[in-house]
């Protein structure tokens, strides 16, 4: 089956110049357009019913002026944009670093050409050479065809930043994609898989649109399940004033299989160390699809975190396992919605560790929190309870390339598992490959491009599966947990996807727990006595 895709990958570029090759909307590669009601819910422009594969996109009559004015404004606001427009030397080092290019062979999926789509319009309208010499210097008019090309390729970039690791000038195509999507949103050209969750999140506090009671129900369900497996009843609280810590996880962890098991892992750790924490139904989403819409939308959705922390009077915020959530929290939140003067510098109440590195933003990653607990011997762990799993670890793009959270999860995994095998060097840590579905591209209708984009990641998993018999792909991201299972099923059957804290939950020996016979999923344990991998 995998041959269907592999046999169509051809890295030889077509004869026709890219400037003359119009985009073709082939099923399986693009996402449905934003519905009117999704845009209306948050007051975004040009709500209407439309479809990207139709001729007429129902753009406002002055769409061109809107976009060019928007570009001008952003050139004045973002030095990154200005620089990245001017400095690329087209050396091509980034070309085969993008998973979408590797998996599709479509030349416009080379980061450099993706960026040139924007750059060509920039040159035409904002540089003297471009105005005079036109195509000769790679400049071109902004036409509807170009707009469609933007839509197609900027919603085929998962903002993973892998290209920027390799670029000698640090040109970050993800930054350009963010800005291009922001422009597209000015004329109502978002995808519904992003616009829908944004609308939900704005009103109900989470992408899935879970209302407060439903959110609580899902958590209660996890609590019941946990009691069944461990015999211990954990007692999370909701919207509780005066708690020491506000805990915010991606809502996918509360709702979806297998993310749920990761959520159970969080609950067990908090229970075991007696953390005084509360969940919030209002700030019930760690993720932020606003990041995939515009800087402004990112800020509007993110505002809930600090607002809720202030209302509840907590001391600091703890954040769950999620990739793009941490891009926002680490690189944007404090700047956008801070300073969070009403919070205190985070200190672990269990170990006394001061999280000095988070003293301004006042939000700590759960991997940092748990690694610190383990380091101080505060968790009793029985890694043998993960012996049925031969684990490898997928670094999510954002924690790796927008933060550098590399060793914390590895330290945790090594403490709770006895069989851990790294994927090849070029595919992990800062060079990690995207799941293929990030930045809001985890819809169903674009499954083909997701499988293509996920191929480099899957290929590396297959390598460790064949070499070490790996059957568990651990990750630190709710989107990963949602999208890696179908990816594995397609490319590497027999590999299941786990959150890091699910593995912790399996190994964690609770006070007063009953003898465990299964892991959190209800799979039987299989303790091996040989310690070959210790």
């Amino acid at each position, binding site marked *: 089956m995998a041959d269907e895709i592999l046999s169509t990958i051809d*890295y*030889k570029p077509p004869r026709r110049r*890219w400037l003359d090759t119009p985009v073709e909307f082939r099923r399986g590669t693009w996402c449905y357009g934003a519905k009117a009601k999704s845009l209306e819910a948050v007051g975004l422009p040009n709500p209407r019913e439309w479809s990207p594969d139709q001729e007429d996109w129902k753009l406002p009559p002055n769409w061109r002026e809107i976009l060019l004015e928007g570009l001008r404004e952003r*050139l004045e*606001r*973002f*030095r990154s944009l*200005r*620089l990245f427009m*001017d*400095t*690329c*030397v*087209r050396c*091509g*080092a980034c*070309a085969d*670093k993008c998973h979408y290019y590797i998996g599709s062979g479509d030349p416009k999926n080379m980061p450099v*050409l993706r960026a*040139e789509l924007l750059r060509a319009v920039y040159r035409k309208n904002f540089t*003297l050479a471009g105005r005079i010499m036109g195509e000769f210097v790679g400049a071109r008019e902004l036409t509807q065809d170009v707009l469609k090309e933007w839509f197609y390729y900027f919603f085929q970039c998962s903002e993973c930043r892998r290209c*920027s*690791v390799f670029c*000698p*000038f640090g*040109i970050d195509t993800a930054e350009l994609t963010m800005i291009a999507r922001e422009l597209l949103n000015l004329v109502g050209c978002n995808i519904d898989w992003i616009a829908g969750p944004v609308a939900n999140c*704005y009103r109900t*506090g989470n992408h899935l649109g879970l*209302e407060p*009671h439903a959110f609580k*129900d899902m958590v209660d369900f996890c609590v019941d399940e946990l009691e069944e497996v461990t015999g211990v009843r954990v007692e999370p609280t909701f919207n*509780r004033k005066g708690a020491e810590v506000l805990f915010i996880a991606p809502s996918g962890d509360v709702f979806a299989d297998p993310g749920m098991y990761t959520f159970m892992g969080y609950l067990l750790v908090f229970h075991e160390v007696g953390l005084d924490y509360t969940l919030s*139904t*209002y700030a019930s989403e760690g993720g932020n699809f606003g990041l995939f819409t515009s800087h402004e939308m990112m800020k*509007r959705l993110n*505002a*809930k975190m600090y607002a809720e922390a202030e209302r509840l009077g907590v001391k600091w915020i703890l954040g769950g396992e999620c990739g793009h959530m941490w891009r926002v929290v680490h*690189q944007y939140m*404090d*700047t956008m919605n*801070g300073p969070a003067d009403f919070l205190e510098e985070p200190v672990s109440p269990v170990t006394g560790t001061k*999280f*000095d*590195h*988070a*003293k*301004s*933003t006042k939000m700590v990653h759960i991997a940092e929190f748990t*690694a610190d607990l383990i*380091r101080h011997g505060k968790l009793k762990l029985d890694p043998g309870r993960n012996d049925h799993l031969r684990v490898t670890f997928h670094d999510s793009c954002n924690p790796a390339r*927008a*933060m*550098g*959270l*590399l060793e*914390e999860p590895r*330290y945790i995994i090594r403490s709770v598992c006895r069989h851990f095998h790294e994927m090849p060097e*070029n595919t992990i840590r800062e060079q990690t490959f995207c799941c293929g579905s990030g930045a809001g591209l985890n819809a169903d209708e674009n499954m083909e491009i997701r499988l293509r984009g996920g191929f480099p990641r899957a*290929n590396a998993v297959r*390598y460790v599966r064949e070499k070490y018999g790996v059957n568990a792909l651990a990750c630190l991201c709710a989107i990963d947990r949602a999208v890696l299972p179908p990816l594995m099923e397609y490319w590497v059957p027999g590999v299941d996807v786990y959150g890091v804290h699910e593995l912790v939950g399996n190994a964690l020996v609770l006070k007063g727990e009953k003898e465990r016979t299964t892991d959190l999923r209800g799979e039987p344990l299989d303790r091996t006595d040989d310690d070959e991998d210790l």
Partner: protein
Amino acid sequence: MGIRVSLFAVLALILVAYVGVALLGLELLFGVIMPYAAMAAFLAGLVYHVIKWARSPVPFRIPTTCGQQRALPWIKASEVDNPSTAVSAAARVALEALLFRSLLRNTKAELADGSLAYRWEKWLWLGGLLFHWSLLVIVLRHLRFFTEPVPGFVNLLRDLDGFLHVNLQVLYITDIVILLAVTYLFLRRVVIPQVRYISLPGDYFPLFLILSIALSGILMAHFIRVDVVAVKELAMGLVTFSPTVPEGIGAIFYIHLFLVSVLLAYFPSSKLIHMVGIFLSPTRNLPNDSRRRRHVNPWNYPVDVHTYEEYEDEFREKMKKADIPVERY
């Protein structure tokens, strides 16, 4: 298309200089006016770009982290690839500019038998580095024309670079290296299908231009000898703003000088501006300390949010039923 047009453009430039000097006797134009105009365009262009860039703020702290963060004290941080201070970030940029560190990560992805492999591919790094360093050394060596007395380091550089002698003539290593490196950079652009596909005329033109400058220089040094004393007189005249046009410098020199003038004038409005850009790149020159120290965005503006009050107003009854605390009953 781009290749041919760029090549013809450079040949035309050579012809212009030759005709201008050898047939029309426009030494003053090519020896004085053009170089001054080009230098003015170069400086003005650089300043314009830098001001333009500097006027756009850096609203967010967006370094691309390429190593372990500094967080828990017992986990060793990777200070250069994930700098936690401005000093480390400066070191990171210095390594980029001096050694092309990011380019050194380069690999080549290959698909064979349904499997991906990442092959060793440091040629671009090597070719690029050799090209740029040779260029720098050559530019510095040229200072001997523009200074009197010639500073010690320029002479030292000349001696080091020129330790090879062929037929009693100095043969500069960097001359050879730059020819090879630029030829390599050109060939890879033509031979690697992807790179060829993304290349614009503006990518070939500077390569041809630099190659022609180097070739005309080498011709002058070894084959069509020019009067070096006269050249120095002209050069000193230029830098001391008392320009003279000495008699008897060959046309080849004016071709060389004209091509350099064109390169200077062309520089700011082309991709060559990367020389400045590399130092300003916000994914490289900022420390990754955004949770430790608040980064301020000068244009941060208030936005519409969905407040808790609005939220509770909508869901109050449901919350009460589910025993979730509310503010107002």
